């Protein structure tokens, strides 16, 4: 089975130092469990993704694309030539525009099936089973046929440990440096230093006083003020009250439904 992991040049969110984005490191782990995988990076410099060699890849292909150019045409051309069974990418990049549009653009360009937010992949070349995260630990198990592009969700298994020896033995190969007619500059947008904005406080009344907002923020506002207090009830009575309350909130299935 042929697997390609898309590697982008990430930046550490705090220090800004070059680092492999965590979701791509998780993608490498998923790929390494399935078989031999190749990394693919389009960018001016391959040093940015060298870290991936220590995290489970043995070989990375690098397409030289000048800074500020859209990497999608170059990646699409190379992927079409490689014809992989599975392409893994991060859900969002890190340190760049972080828009997560690159996998979608690739899927459209190559007419690939795209399954987003995958946490685990199993199976072989003809039928793959992908576990897609639906949030809160729920999954959708999708069985697919044919080549597929999947983006990795942060809930996937943690990346493999970095191995220095493997990182030294791994190879980076420059391929298809000439991306001639396909040069498309990335859209330029106005940028300014980030300004933190007040977070919306859930449950605070609009136009309420500062005291009301504080109460809503510390969780004293909602349930606590309307709270019910039962002092020394009969244990059976207490149990009934608790179950009724849990059902009313909706975290416990109704008795009639739970029985089936």
């Amino acid at each position, binding site marked *: 089975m042929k697997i390609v992991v898309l590697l982008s040049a990430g*930046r550490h*969110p705090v220090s800004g130092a070059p680092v492999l984005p965590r979701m791509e490191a998780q993608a490498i782990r998923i790929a390494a469990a399935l078989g031999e995988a190749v990394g693919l990076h389009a960018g001016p410099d391959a040093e940015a993704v060298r870290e991936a060699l220590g995290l489970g890849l043995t070989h990375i292909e690098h397409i030289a694309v000048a800074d500020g150019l859209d990497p999608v045409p170059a990646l699409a051309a190379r992927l079409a030539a490689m014809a992989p069974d599975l392409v893994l990418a991060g859900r969002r990049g*890190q340190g*760049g*525009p*972080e828009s*997560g*549009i690159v996998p*979608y*653009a690739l899927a*459209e360009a190559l*007419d690939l*099936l795209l399954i*987003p937010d995958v946490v685990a992949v199993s199976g072989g070349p003809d039928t793959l089973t992908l*576990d897609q995260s*639906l*949030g*809160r*630990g*729920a*999954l*959708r*198990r*999708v*069985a*697919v*046929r*044919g080549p597929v592009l999947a983006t990795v969700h942060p809930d996937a298994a943690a990346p493999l440990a970095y191995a220095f020896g493997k990182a030294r033995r791994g190879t980076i190969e420059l391929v298809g440096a000439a991306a001639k007619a396909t040069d498309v500059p990335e859209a330029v947008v106005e*940028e*300014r230093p*980030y300004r933190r904005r007040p*977070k*919306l406080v*859930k449950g605070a009344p609009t136009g309420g006083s500062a005291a009301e907002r504080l109460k809503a923020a510390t969780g*004293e506002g*909602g*349930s*606590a003020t*309307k*709270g*019910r*207090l*039962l*002092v020394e009830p009969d*244990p*059976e009575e*207490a*149990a009934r009250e*608790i*179950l009724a*309350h*849990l059902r009313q*909130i*909706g*975290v*416990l*299935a109704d*008795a*009639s439904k739970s*029985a089936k």
Partner: protein
Amino acid sequence: MTRPRRDPRAERASIQVAGEARPRFDRTARRTGSGRPRRDPRAERAGQRVAGESRPRYDLSQTVRFDAAVITEAQPKTAAVAPPKILVLENPAFLVAVVPDAPGGRLSSHDRQVLGAARALAGREGGVAILTLGPCEGVGPAGADRCLPLEAVEGYDPASQTARVAAALTALAARHVLFPESLDGGDLARRVAVRLGEPVFTNAEVVAANGLVRPAKGRRVEQRVAPGMLATVAPDAVAEYGGPPREARLLSVDGEAPTPSPQKNPKRIVSAARVPADPATVPLALAEFVVSAGNGLTDLDTFRQVVAALHATPGASRVLCDAGLMPRHTQVGASGTVLAATCYFALGISGAPQHLQGVAGCEHVVAVNTDLHAAMIERAGLAIVQDAQVVMPALLRLLEQEAGENA
């Protein structure tokens, strides 16, 4: 010019309340003698009170004579009784479309925020149109002027869902289209964007007619553009629509007939099945419902049975984890896991600040504790002052009995 001579006895007799065995005098009655009414500071203060607020507020500019008619009584009634008028927008200058997630046919709070953002973009002239896949309730009060229900796609078929939404959006010719930046909404937005060949402005934190703002480069910079066609809105960044309910008039667009999906090689998705989270193994930070044990519990076997019977995820306070009675990864609190659960059920936990920090995000808290003055009892929406050791078996018995009745 001589003032009439006062007769205190007669005055007193005149204000005596009749018909009582003990002499009582009504001193608020207007005196005939001096003419000046007696002031009643309490009544004056009450008259200045602004009606209809839970916290007392007083309008000091208003001077009320105690003997004037009380004006506050009638006021709040008219405001509360009048039914909210539904705003009707006949000919919107342009449309702002919203494609919500609407899980289970109900708007999530994120969806409402996106509708609020769309309302801000639409301003006075524009209209907000909501495009729902399948029926959806409560869209008018959330700020939608128009409603366009599309046929839901059965099964997991993102390609035909995208085709359907893209076709409807083209037919609707909306000036802006907003999606929630959630798992489903963000996915659909990007699919629609590449299908229409339009750029999408993702994860906008500020939505206004003069510009959208999103964080980038690890929140070091923010990018600002004039509102384009497609954008996704970050959660908890924009306020929900707070105005009067809107019309949500049903729309239908031509060409909405589901296009035969132009897939070259169909049936690439063989099957898709939903696997619900297993509460016993789901990581604590993701759990929906956590039942937690504290130092007040001695019978942990019964506790584990209760957790299993309630289909919850087990948690514990630090005391139990330090003692090795519960595994470390179950610890809730500042040095353990910060929960995002909907409901937290605390058994025998005092509610130390370090513990409550982990619970701050939980919407509902239920507590059982023997101590009426425990902080956990104060935090809880349903607080039960009782020995947890006897409540747990009662819970188990009740659940068993219910299961037996329905078997």
